[in-house]
């Protein structure tokens, strides 16, 4: 079977789960082509695959812990390439896939619909219009338009794959609000994580160990400072802070002895596997990675980013970790870390999710779905 996988390049979450799926499909002998842009494309290539350049769709802009909605829309509009549509159409025509899989990259869905190729949407969010609530009239209007657009797209795709645990364990459940008639189209695959728990080696990290995966976008920088102060409060807890490609660790003058600061790591999974707590924003993919490795989470959702706030709220409600905020001071972050380390309940719950992720085997479940629906095993 020939499969083309397109991905949204904002954050690396979409890329990461597409790589998980691509790996599985390739291993089963299918032919794959990726469409990506920016860092996302770099990551696909670094992983050893070829990727076609596609135009970017959404640009995120923010400052000091908040996502700037108006700024993001402006940047997105400025960035929209007039010839984006034809370019994606041509890529699909050239590769002639049996199936198009799109991780939140909507141009490819429209193109596949035009070309009458079966198309599968991967998404962890159906309520994008929430993003636009209480944000002024022009943005609200755009919200209404967005709602209509997504409604059309959801109806025209062959299946909507939700890369999360099925209910009642679904972490993104507060972000899903599909119309009842779409229910038949929904497929909860289980987490799509690039590495399986048993494939990842443990590394020797001093215990107890906290790994912070907060990095990338510059407006998350204040959390870095807080994590350094938090680490200094209790030398008995050890930390690995991964800053992401945009942050320069040399900016941080005094690094406590119990902290290892890493600018970027190719493979975060050994760190996740070998830690006792993961600190992350509220992005869905990182949360899936931590939970499928059985590690509780302290989530700092981006302020005003309702999708992340909803994910973090589920983490808190279900006892998979705690929801913090940009205003949480270091003393309280430390208390949360201690609580999650000491209270066995957190560990019990996430270990259950680790087992469930292994049993569901998300990438395999999607492969089998695509094979079944297209009636082809290997092309």
């Amino acid at each position, binding site marked *: 079977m020939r499969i083309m996988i397109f991905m949204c390049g904002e954050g690396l979450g979409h890329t990461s789960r597409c790589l998980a799926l691509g790996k599985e499909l390739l291993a089963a002998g299918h032919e794959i082509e990726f469409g990506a842009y920016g860092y996302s494309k770099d990551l696909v290539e670094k992983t050893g695959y070829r990727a076609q350049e596609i135009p970017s769709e959404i640009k995120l802009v923010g400052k000091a812990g908040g996502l700037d909605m108006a700024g993001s829309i402006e940047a997105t509009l400025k960035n929209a390439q007039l010839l984006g549509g034809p370019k994606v159409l041509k890529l699909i025509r050239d590769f002639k896939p049996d199936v198009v899989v799109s991780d939140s990259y909507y141009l490819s869905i429209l193109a596949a619909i035009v070309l009458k190729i079966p198309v599968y949407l991967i998404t962890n969010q159906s309520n994008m219009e929430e993003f636009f609530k209480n944000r002024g009239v022009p943005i609200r209007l755009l919200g209404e338009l967005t709602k209509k657009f997504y409604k059309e797209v959801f109806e025209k795709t062959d299946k909507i794959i939700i890369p999360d645990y099925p209910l009642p364990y679904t972490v993104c459940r507060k972000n899903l609000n599909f119309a009842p008639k779409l229910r038949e189209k929904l497929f909860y695959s289980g987490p799509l994580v690039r590495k399986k728990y048993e494939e990842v080696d443990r590394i020797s990290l001093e215990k107890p160990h906290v790994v912070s995966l907060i990095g990338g976008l510059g407006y998350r920088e204040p959390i870095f400072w807080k994590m350094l102060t938090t680490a200094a409060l209790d030398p008995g807890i050890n930390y690995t802070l991964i800053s992401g490609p945009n942050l320069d660790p040399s900016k941080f003058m005094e690094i406590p002895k119990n902290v290892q600061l890493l600018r970027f790591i190719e493979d975060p999974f050994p760190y996740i596997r070998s830690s006792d707590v993961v600190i992350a924003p509220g992005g869905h993919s990182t949360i899936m990675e931590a939970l499928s490795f059985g590690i509780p989470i302290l989530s700092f959702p981006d302020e*005003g980013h309702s999708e992340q706030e909803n994910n973090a709220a589920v983490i808190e409600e279900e006892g998979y970790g705690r929801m*913090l*905020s940009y205003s949480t001071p270091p003393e*309280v972050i430390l208390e949360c870390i201690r609580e999650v380390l000491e209270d066995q309940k957190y560990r019990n719950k996430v270990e259950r999710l680790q087992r469930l992720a292994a049993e569901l085997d998300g990438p395999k479940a999607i492969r089998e779905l695509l094979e079944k629906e297209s009636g082809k095993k290997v092309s």
Partner: protein
Amino acid sequence: MKILLFICGEGLGHTGRCLSLGKDFLAAGHEVNFGAYGYSKELVIKSGYSAYEIPSEIRLAGESGTFDIRKSIKETLNNISPSGFRKILRLIEELDPDVVLSDGYYSGILAAQIRKVPVYFIGHQFNMEEFFQKKGLFVGAAGKFARRFYNHIFSSVDGIIVPDYPLPYSVNRKNFTISRNINSNIFFSGPLIRCRYREAEEKSFRHPNVLSTIGAFGYRAAIFRNVIEAAKLDPDIHYTFISGPEIDPEQFPEIPGNVEFTGFTDNPFPYYRSSDLVITAGGHGTIMESLAFGLPVLSFPDEKHREQENNAAVLEEAGYGKRMSYLTPPEVILACIREVLEDESYSKKTRRLMELAEVLDGPAAVRKFLEGKYKA
């Protein structure tokens, strides 16, 4: 630094936290003046400070377990007068403070702004308009007005001090609905408690001891009866009642041997220190005091009082205690008391909050926060 603290005198929660702030500021060598009224002013004076009389703003009214919002609005409107406001303006002019801190007292904020003195709002509740929802046309219109008024206040003050644990431990989180777009200077200080755990004297109570602090409102007396009935059901659990000034123990003729009345006291802290569980309404101040002393709470929020209901809901969700109701019968009250005493997860969580209150040291944190902005 010269500080003027305005206190809303409805309930004693505002007063308690302002006294904790005053004590810390004075100990650090700052000059502190209090503006207060009614019983709140008496408590300031009894605590050894002087206080300037200010006019009352909000009047709470209610009867037998419910809070009457319509009556409260009417009494509040009757209470506000231009001459009262001029008095506050004069007070600020005379005292010439560097900073005004206003705990739930809105006239003080407006007056400070007119006099161009930096002003901080101290409060734990930011969704006041919810208070007014589904209560008829008159109250609904008042709610819309209130929303606009409060939004103006919250966006125009120099900062907002929230006397609660920072997230995710904030008890007021369901009442905290403002974003940094409204005011970028929001500071969760940790609890502001008049007395620290280690400063409180210990009483020789028999354990387990349940402390009931149902306070000053006469309409809460019904809970007393139910708790006393619960006490009769199990003589091995001991009870201490701190009754509000409007409750006369003589009203309750059949007091079982395991129940003790302290009468009204200004200093509940030795009782907190020596108890295992607190039964209270849903007021933020008492909940903060209980948690900062490491005690789980059974909360009976005043009916239709959204803020208290939200606080009680958080206590229940976070596992710091249970949310009760006026309808909870004595047998069920006893079952809840036993559950919270026996299930260690409650005391484990509240002990964590006690330690956190110590570490955060709310009064000192507020002082340092302001010292950083206004050098002495």
